[in-house]
């Protein structure tokens, strides 16, 4: 290698490494900032108190409860529907213009900004179906939002199952139903679960659609039913982060720590599942 070539080679290699380090640097800066602001005010009281005008007394309990309520119903609606749609598209649908249209449509839906789903939810669930600003309206909205992601993840997981497995099962005289449910789906299950967990984790972090659907910013009670009004972690954090006082910024950071623990924890679980399934195959 000539000297000039060696220099260029090192520049390219170092440049690539540098971009990676920049990414890690960003992550580190963000985590340090959040932890620095949030750890001091992260306390048991914080977790069990309700929000208040006084930052020292404010807590995140209602937001936690609201998040749990909304996510429960979101999962109940989105997961079975999404998984079954994915199974249909990959195992039952014949390849014609209609199913291709559905596939393209799902790809588009996956790319639509969250806030547009909020507007859909507002018009359809809150107003037209008259569910009001309730947990149910929020959950249905979020379910619609993550449905395309779950469908795509399920489809990809099923597509990854090798055809030789299906042929082997047909070869011993299995019926279509048996091949799909006794062989293909068990094999695709880890991939499907990864996709579902990632989709749910995204829903937990999303605030925009729920703002539209009317999640309130000051909720000093726990929701007790699906028709109650509510708030979620992400919105409570947004509310506090937007206030000028330093103390509110600090409890916003505390809320963020909790939110990150949940979402990053779910992401880590999904990655672990994916790694395990690759190892088993």
């Amino acid at each position, binding site marked *: *290698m000539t000297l000039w*070539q060696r220099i*260029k*080679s090192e520049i390219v*290699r170092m440049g*690539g*490494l540098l*971009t*990676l380090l920049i*990414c*890690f640097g*960003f*992550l580190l*800066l963000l985590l340090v*900032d959040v932890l620095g*602001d949030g750890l001091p005010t992260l306390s048991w009281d914080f977790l069990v108190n309700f929000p208040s005008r006084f930052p020292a007394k404010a807590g995140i309990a209602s937001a936690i409860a609201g998040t749990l309520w909304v996510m429960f119903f979101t999962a109940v609606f989105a997961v079975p*529907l999404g998984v*079954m*749609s994915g*199974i*249909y598209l990959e195992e039952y*649908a014949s390849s014609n213009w209609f199913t291709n249209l*559905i596939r393209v*449509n799902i*790809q*588009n*839906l996956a*790319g*639509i*900004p*969250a*806030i*547009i*789903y*909020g*507007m*859909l939810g*507002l*018009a*359809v669930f809150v107003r037209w179906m008259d569910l009001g600003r309730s947990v149910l309206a929020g959950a249905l909205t979020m379910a*619609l939002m993550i*449905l395309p992601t779950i*469908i795509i993840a399920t489809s990809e997981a099923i597509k990854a199952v090798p055809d030789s497995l299906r042929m082997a099962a047909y070869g011993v005289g299995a019926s279509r*139903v048996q091949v799909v449910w006794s062989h293909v789906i068990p094999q695709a299950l880890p991939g499907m679960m990864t996709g579902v967990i990632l989709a749910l984790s*995204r829903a937990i972090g999303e*605030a925009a659609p729920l*703002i539209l659907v*009317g999640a309130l910013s000051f909720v000093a009670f726990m929701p007790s039913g699906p028709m109650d009004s509510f708030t979620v972690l*992400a919105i409570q*954090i*947004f509310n506090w*982060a*937007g206030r000028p006082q330093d103390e509110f*910024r600090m409890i916003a*950071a505390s809320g*963020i720590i909790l*939110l990150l623990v949940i*979402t990053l924890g779910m*992401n880590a679980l999904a*990655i672990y599942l994916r790694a395990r399934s690759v190892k088993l195959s």
Partner: protein
Amino acid sequence: MTSTGDSSESSSLPIGQPSLNKSLGRASLSASELISHILVRGAALLTIVTTLGILWVLVSEVGLFFSNIGVLDFLFGLEWSALIEPRKFGVIPLVTGTLMIGLGAAAFAVPIGAGCALFLSEYVRGRKKQILKSIVEVLAGIPSVVYGFFALSYVTPLLGKIFPEIQFFNALSAAIVVGMMVIPTIASMSQDAFEAVPRELRDAAYGLGARKYQVATTVVFPAALSGFIASVILAFARAIGETMAVTLAAGSTPNLTWNPLESVQTITAYIVQVSLGDTPSGTIEYSSIFAVGLVLFGMTLFMNLTAQLVVKRFHERYH
């Protein structure tokens, strides 16, 4: 599979042989098959209903808006002042605000994302590759509000030291954090594109005595160009759809400017602003969010379709 042989007399059996005919036993299995068929088809149809629903909602709710504001005034007006008198509904300031964040974020994320993708694809082997890729992915897993907080608490003060004239809410801060958020979009998709370049191509280049950096930059990258471009388009689409981070970081002042140090309002931030207030339905303000929402929907739909087209071209070349 069709059969055109003459088979009218061959469905009867010699005695003593097991029947091959479709029997009642199999028919009851067909009932459960039928139920799962229906359930599963219905679920897929729901997605069509959703798209139609979105379109219908947006189009029907803007009726009130456009009966009061002319379409041309809306699309080309240079002043947006929806909640403060005198009311003006020109959408251009919101569009420029949105584009500034989108372009800024993309400009920020493209070099970093491309660098990560190329480096991981060509210079890293084995388990390290998967681990490093996962760490980059974490940037995408962090919720938008957290980025908004980070912008206010760290990025804007830092920028203030470099540009003392910067406003507290500004576009640059928002563009940077949204850029961080979409780096994995570019990195992941581009890395897949680079790795999909067939081995034969690299072998040919190495066989001619090329160096790794030459192969990476002059063979692999151009071969995967459409995948890379698609990832950039998708990242841009994601950036313009971002809500919480830009609302916190860029502010709520509709402002027709290309100066990133000033406060701007994006379409998404405006929608949030209206929703947080108490806006009864049936008012101009309420239907205005659907009008700008329609613009946003059009923009992201266009981007997504373009990206899909680019990806299809890429697949056709190599599969």
